[in-house]
C-alpha cells in the first residue's frame, strides 16, 4: 500500500498534479447480507489483498451455486485474534495462511485445517539461516552475541521455524528492538525486519550478522549474491499454506468446497485464477488427523525461554 501512495505523491510532485483527494481505505469489498462465501485473510494492505483474492472468492461462489451462494466475498482481518473471532462466529468461511498463523487461529477458533495450498507453486518449504561469507561466520555457534533477522512474529518460515530450530539446538535467543543492541556473549538476538527481502538486505548491508528466510525466497536471490553467503542452517520442512474452514460450516459444504479447490487446478477456468492468486499451483488434502501437530510442537519450542 505504501508504494502506490508514494508513487502518487511522486507523480504529483513531478508533474504538477493538483488533485489532493486521499484514497479511501475500504475494509470489505461488499456487504454480506446475502448468502456468500467469505474468504478471510490477515493483512495490513487490505485493498491489495482483496484485489488479489476476490477472483478466487468469486470462483468459489460460482462453484457453490448449489448451496445458494450467490457471491464471493473477501474479508481482511488486521490480526490473528480477529480472524479467529470471525471464523469462530462464522463470519469468515475460509481462511488460508501459513502453518504458524493457521495454528494460532485454529487454536482460538476451533477451525480445522483441511487443505494444503501450493502457494508460489510449492507445496512445502523450510527456512534457510544464512550470513555473508566475508563476515567470518561458519556456524550457528558463531552467532552468539550477534543478531539474526526474522521477518515478523506471525511468520512461519522467518520466525517460528528458525526460532524453534535455534532453541532446539540449544541456543538462547532473545528478541531485540535495535539491530545494534549489545548482547550477552551467550545469547543470539533476533530482530523483525518486516519482510524477507529486508532481512536479506540487512545481512548484505551488515546491519545484522545473519538472516532467516524461507527456502523459496533464498532461491530468488541472484546467484552471484547467493554465492557470497554462507548457509549456517536449514530447518525442517512444513506445508507452505493451509486452508482452515469455519467450524460453523456444515461438513457437507466443507467437503464441497474442498472438492472444488482440489480440482481447481484441473479446471481451465480455475487454473488462471489460481495462478493469479499468488501463483498457487494447486490445493491438495493434508495428510493425517492433525496436520498442525508438528507446527504445534515447533510453537511449543518457541515458547521456551
Amino acid at each position, binding site marked *: 500500500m505504501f508504494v502506490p501512495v*508514494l508513487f502518487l505523491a511522486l507523480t504529483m510532485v513531478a508533474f504538477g498534479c493538483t488533485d489532493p483527494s486521499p484514497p479511501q481505505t475500504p475494509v470489505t469489498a461488499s456487504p454480506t447480507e446475502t448468502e456468500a462465501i467469505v474468504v478471510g485473510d490477515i493483512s495490513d494492505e487490505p485493498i491489495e489483498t482483496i484485489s488479489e483474492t476476490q477472483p478466487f472468492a468469486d470462483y468459489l461462489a460460482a462453484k457453490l451455486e448449489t448451496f445458494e451462494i450467490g457471491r464471493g466475498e473477501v474479508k481482511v482481518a488486521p490480526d490473528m485474534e480477529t480472524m479467529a473471532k470471525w471464523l469462530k462466529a462464522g463470519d469468515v468461511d475460509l481462511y488460508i495462511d501459513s502453518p504458524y498463523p493457521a495454528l494460532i487461529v485454529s487454536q482460538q477458533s476451533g477451525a480445522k485445517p483441511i487443505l494444503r495450498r501450493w502457494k508460489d507453486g510449492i507445496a512445502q518449504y523450510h527456512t534457510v539461516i544464512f550470513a555473508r561469507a566475508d563476515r567470518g561466520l561458519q556456524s550457528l555457534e558463531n552467532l552468539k552475541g550477534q543478531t539474526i533477522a526474522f521477518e515478523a512474529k506471525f511468520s512461519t518460515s522467518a520466525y517460528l521455524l528458525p526460532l524453534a530450530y535455534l532453541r532446539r539446538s540449544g541456543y538462547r535467543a532473545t528478541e531485540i528492538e535495535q539491530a545494534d543492541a549489545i548482547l550477552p556473549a551467550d545469547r543470539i538476538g533476533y530482530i523483525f525486519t518486516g519482510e524477507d527481502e529486508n532481512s536479506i538486505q540487512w545481512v548484505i548491508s551488515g546491519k545484522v550478522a545473519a538472516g532467516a528466510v524461507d527456502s523459496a525466497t533464498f532461491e530468488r536471490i541472484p546467484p552471484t*549474491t547467493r554465492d557470497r553467503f554462507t548457509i549456517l542452517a536449514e530447518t525442517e520442512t512444513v506445508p507452505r499454506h493451509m486452508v482452515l474452514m469455519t467450524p460453523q460450516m456444515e461438513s457437507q459444504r466443507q467437503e464441497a468446497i474442498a472438492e472444488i479447490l482440489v480440482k481447481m487446478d484441473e479446471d481451465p477456468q480455475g487454473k488462471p485464477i489460481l495462478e493469479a492468486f499468488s501463483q498457487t499451483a494447486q490445493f491438495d488434502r493434508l495428510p493425517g488427523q492433525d496436520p498442525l501437530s508438528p507446527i504445534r510442537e515447533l510453537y511449543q519450542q518457541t515458547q521456551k525461554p
Partner: protein
Amino acid sequence: MKRLARLSWRRWPIAVKLTFTITLSVVSAVAGVTWLSLNREQKTFRHSLEAQAQSMLDLLAALAADPLYKLEPNTLSGLMVRMGEQPDIISGSIYDSLGQPIAELGQVQPAYAVQVDAWGEQILESDRTLWDWQRDRLVAGQTVKVGHQALGAVSLGLSTAALEKKMAQVRNQGLTVALGAGVAGGLLAWLISRSMTERLKGLVDATERIAAGDVERSIAADGNDELAILAKGFNHMSDRIRSTILHLEERAAQLQRSEAKNQALLEAIPDLMLRLRQDGTYLDVRIAKDPTQEHPFSPSGLLGKNLRDVLPDDIAEQTLQAANRARKTGQAQMFEYQLSLTKPGDEEPRLRDFEARLVASGKDEVLAIVRDITERKHHETQIEAERRQLEQIIADAPVAIAVIDRQLRYRAHSQQWAIDRDVGDKSLVGELHDDTFPNLPKRWKTSFQLALAGEKVTYPEECWTRDDGTKQCLRWAVYPWYRSDGEVGGIAIATHNINELVQAREAALENVRIKSEFLANISHELRTPMNGVLGMSDLLLTTSLNPQQLEYAEILKTSGEHLLSLIQDLLGFAKLETGQIQLQYREFDLHQCVEKVLDLFSFQAYNKNVELGAIVDVNIPKILMGDASRIRQILTILVGNAIKFTPSGSVLISVGVDSKNEEIDHPSIGQNRELLKLRFTVRDTGIGIPSEKQKYLFQAFSQIDASSTREYGGTGLGLAIAGRLVQLMGGEISADSTPEVGSTFQFTARFAVVSRQSSTQKRLGESGPLNSQALQGLRLLVVDDNQLSCKVLQHYATIWGMEVQETTNSAAAEKLLQSSVSAGKSFDVVAIDLAHPRLDRQILERLTRANGKADRTKFIAFATPNQSYRSRQFLEAGFFDTVTKPIKASRLLKTFLKAVDRTSQKPVSIAPPLPKSIQPAQISEQQTIPLQSRNPKEKAKEKAAVLVVEDTPINQKVVINQLKILGYQTECANNGREALDKLAQLPADLVLMDCQMPILDGYQATRALREIEKANGRHTIVIALTAHALASDRQKCFASGMDDYLSKPVSIDKLGATLEHWLNSNNQYNDRDLSDSPEGSTESAQTNGSSQENLEEDLNAGSQSDGDASPREAIDWDRLHQVSGADAEFEIELLEAFVESALEYIAGMAKAIDENDAQTLGRLAHQLKGASGNVGVPSMMKISTIINDRAKFHRLEGLSDYLPELDRIQKRVQAVIDELKG
C-alpha cells in the same frame, strides 16, 4: 615554383585581396557566432539538466530516506521502477551506506549486490552532489542523510539526447548562414574594391609626379570618404612640401647672416681662442686683443703645429687630457697653468697665470679659450693672506669669539671658544653650529636670527644646564658682520664665561638666605619657651607675693614680653628677607581693616592716656582688592610705635587717595583693573625723632639709640618690616618728625577697585542698611575736651550731613542745650565723653534737665574700654547708648542712625540682672562687666547656638554660665562622640571644644566633623577650649581642623570677644593666615607651660603662706567674678559643684596613686586642673598641674604627698561656701 610565385599574396591585385579578405571575415564571423551560440546553448542546457537532475535527486533522496533507514529493498526497488517511468531518466541506483546497490532503475527485484559500487562509494564520500557528464547522459548522485548519519546514496542518469538534437539544429543553421553570408560578402567586397582601386590609381600617378619634382599639380578629391580624405591629404601634403622648400631657402639666407654676426662676436672676445685637433694640432688660432692679456703666440706661428711643439710638456699633456675629456664627456673642461714669459725689455722671464677652457667642437676637435688671469690671481692671493691673518687674530684672541656665516657654519673661532665648549684643540671651522651644539637654548637661535637680520643682541647673563648636568653661565653678544656688497655675511658671537662670578654671587645670596632662615628657625624655637616664661610669669603674679617678689616677677614678665616681641619681629623680618611672605589679594573692607587696628590698640592707648582715632577719606570705595592683613600689620607697627613713643597726647590714622592709576593687568589682581593708590598716615604727638636719626628708621636693628630700647622696648625691626612690606606692595614709606612735637609716618599702597558696584555705592554710609541719608540736617552736640575725638566726630558727622557743635566743658554744653531748646532747635543727638574728668552724675542730670522736654534728643556716651560700669550707670540714667572709644565710624553711624530712628524705642537691656548681692555701686571700674549692647548685632547672639563640648561638670557650668551672660544659646555635650551626635541632629553656629575627653577627644571629634562637612559643604566654627597652652598644642588644634584656640581658664571678656569675632565676621575665617601669624589666633599663647621645678617651688611657697591665711584667699575672686558674671548665687553654686567634683577627683587620684595607674591619675588631675582653674582656685590648679604632668611621665613617686594639700584646699573652699551662705 613559378606557378606558386604567381599565387603569392603580394602579387594579388588589391581588389582580389579586398574581396577575399572581406568574404573570409564574413564567413569567420558567422562561424564564430554559430560556435558561440552552440557553446551558450550547451551551457544553458547543461545548467538546466543539472537543475532538473538535482530536483529529481532531492525528491528521490527524500522518498528513499525512510526505506533506506529501514533497509527495505522492495520499497526502494518500487521507487526506482517509478523513477524509470520518467522519460529523461535512463539510469539510476540506490546504494546502502556501504555503497552497495540495493535497487537499480528498471529492476523490480532488489539488486542484492554484495559488492561495493565505485560510483556509490564516491557519492558517499562527498558532501555535495556529484556530477558525471557522460557521452549520452548526465549522471548525478548525492548522499542520503538523516542528521549526520549517511543512510546511503541515490544516483540518477538523465539523457542528453535532447541536447544533441538541439546542438545539431544550431550547427546546421550556422553553416547555412555562413555560406550565404560568404557569397553575399564576396560580391559586395568585389564591388567596393573596384570603386576604390580606380581612385587609388589616380593617387599613385600623382605620387609619381611629385617624385619627379612636379609639386604644382593637384588631384581630384570628390566626396567625403576615406579616399577623398586621402586625396585631400595628398594635396595638402604637396602644398606643405612646396611651402617647406620656400622656408628652407629663407632659413639658409638667415644662417648666412647669423654666421657673419657670430664671427664679429668672436672677434670681440679678449681671450686667446684655439681649435685643436685630437692629436693636438692647431686648426685655428685667434689672438686676444686685450692689452692686459699676454700670449706669447702668433696665429701664423701656431697653425698646423702641434701643441707639444709649442707648450711645455706637462702643460701640453694636461691640455690634451682635458681635450680628450671634453670630447668624451661633452662637458667643458677647465684648468689653470703658469707660463714663464719674457717680453721685449724684460730682464727676467715673468710667470703668468692662464686659465684654459676646452669644449668639444666637432667629432675630433676641441675649442680652447685661454685667458691670462695673472692679475686676478694676484688679487686672490692678497685676499687669502688677509683672511688668514684675520683668522689668526681671532684664533689667538683671549676671549671666546666665533665667526659664523649665514648658514651658521663656522668660519673662524678663537681657541678660547673651543676651550669654553669643551671641544679641546679640535677646529670647528667648516662645521655647522647646530651640529656642534645641538641643545642650545631657543633664545640663542632666536638671537642668531635677529643678528642675521642686522640687529646686535647682547645678554649680560644667561645660565642653563648642559647635557652633562653642569650649569653654564655666560655673558654674550651676537653681532652681524657684512660682506663687501653690504649684505649680512653672518654673525660674530662673543661669550664670556661668568660661571665663577655667578657662583660667587649665588653663594653670597645663599649665605644671606641661610642666615635669614636660621634666624627664622631660631626665632621660632626661642618663642616656644618664651611662651612658657611669660605664662608662668603671669601665674606667678597671681600668687601671693611680697613686694620684692612682686617686683622681680613683674620685671621678669616685662623682660619676657620684650624678648618675645623681639623674637616675633625677628621672625617676621626673617620671613620677609627670605621671601617667604606672599601677598594675598582679596576683597576687603578698608574701614573694617582700620577699625581693627583701633580695636587692637584701644586698651594700650587708654592705659597710656593716648587718644586714638582714625579718619578714612569717604571718597575711597569701601571694598577694595588687596592684602588686608599686610596693611593691618603695617598699621599695627606704625600705630604701636606711635603709642609707644607718645607719653600722652594723640595718635591719628588717616587714609586718603594719593592718585589713581591706569588700568593694569596683574596676575594676582586680575585683568583690566582700575588701580587706586592710597596714602596711609599715622600721626602722633610723641617725643619725635631727631632728623639725623631719621635716615636709619627703616633699616633693620636700628632703634634710634640703645637708651630707647631700654625705655620703650622693641626690637628696632618693626619699621624695617613695615618698609619691606610696603616695598612688597609696590608702595613707598617715609617719616617726618620733629623732636618733642611728634612724628608722621606715611606709606602708600596700591589697590584694585572692585568693579562689581560703583565706588560711590560702596562708600561708608551710602549703601545698604546703613544709609546716612537719615542723618541729613540733624543737629549734633559734642561734649568732649579731646581734640582728636572731636575732629574724628566732626569729620564723619559733617560727611553724613549733620550740623555739629562742639564744646569742651559741661557748663558750656548746658548753656547750649538750654539755648537750643529755647530757640526751638533742640539737638537731635548729644555725644558726651565719659572720660571728661569732671563729668559726674550730677552734671549729667543737669544736662538732661537743660534739655528740658526735648524728648527727641538722644544722649550718647563715649566710654573708654574700662568704663563698662559707668556706661551702665549712664544707660540707667537715660542715655540712649554708649560708644566705646576709640571712635569707629561704622559703630558711630549705627548708633546715630538708631538714635534718630523715630520708630525705635530706647534699647532695652537684654543683660541678665545684676546679682542682688552685688549692687552696681559696689562694682569697681576695673571689674569687667559685659555691657549688653542693644544693636542688631548683639541681638543676633540670642540666635547664635553654641555647643559646649566638655567632660568636666564644673567646667561645663562655668562656660555655660559665661555664654548665658553673653547672651548665647547653649547646648552641652560630654565628649566628642556626643557632640557629633548632637551636631548631626541640630547644627550649631559655633563649638567650644575641650581637647582631652574620654570616648572621643576634641582633636578626633573635630577631624570627624570636618570629614562630615566635606560632604555637606558646611563649616562649623570650632574653638579649642583647653588647659593645654603650648604653641605645639595650638598647632595640634589647628591641624585637627579647629579654627581658633582659647586656653582655660578663659575670661568672659576674652570668650565674648572671640565669639563675637567668629560669629560676626565669618569671612574672617577665610582671611586668616595661620602660617603667617603667631597672632593668627585671637589669643596669643599665654602659656602656663613652665617647668616642673618652678611650679613645685611656687607650690611650696604657696602652701607655706597659705597656712595661716584666710579661707577666702584660696579663691581668686576676680576670676570667680569673671566666670560668674558677679552673680553671687551662681558663684556659690559653682563652688559647691567644684567641691563636689574635687572630692571625687581627689579620691580617684588617691586610688590611682595606690594602684600605680598613671593614666587614670593623669586624666583626673587634668579634670581637677581645669575645674579649679575655671572657678578660680589657683593653688589646687597648680597641684593638679604638677600631678598631671608627672603622671604623663609615669613619675608617681611622692605624688601622694600632694593629696593632703588638695584636701586642705578643698576644705578651705568649703569654708568659703559656708561663709557665703551665711
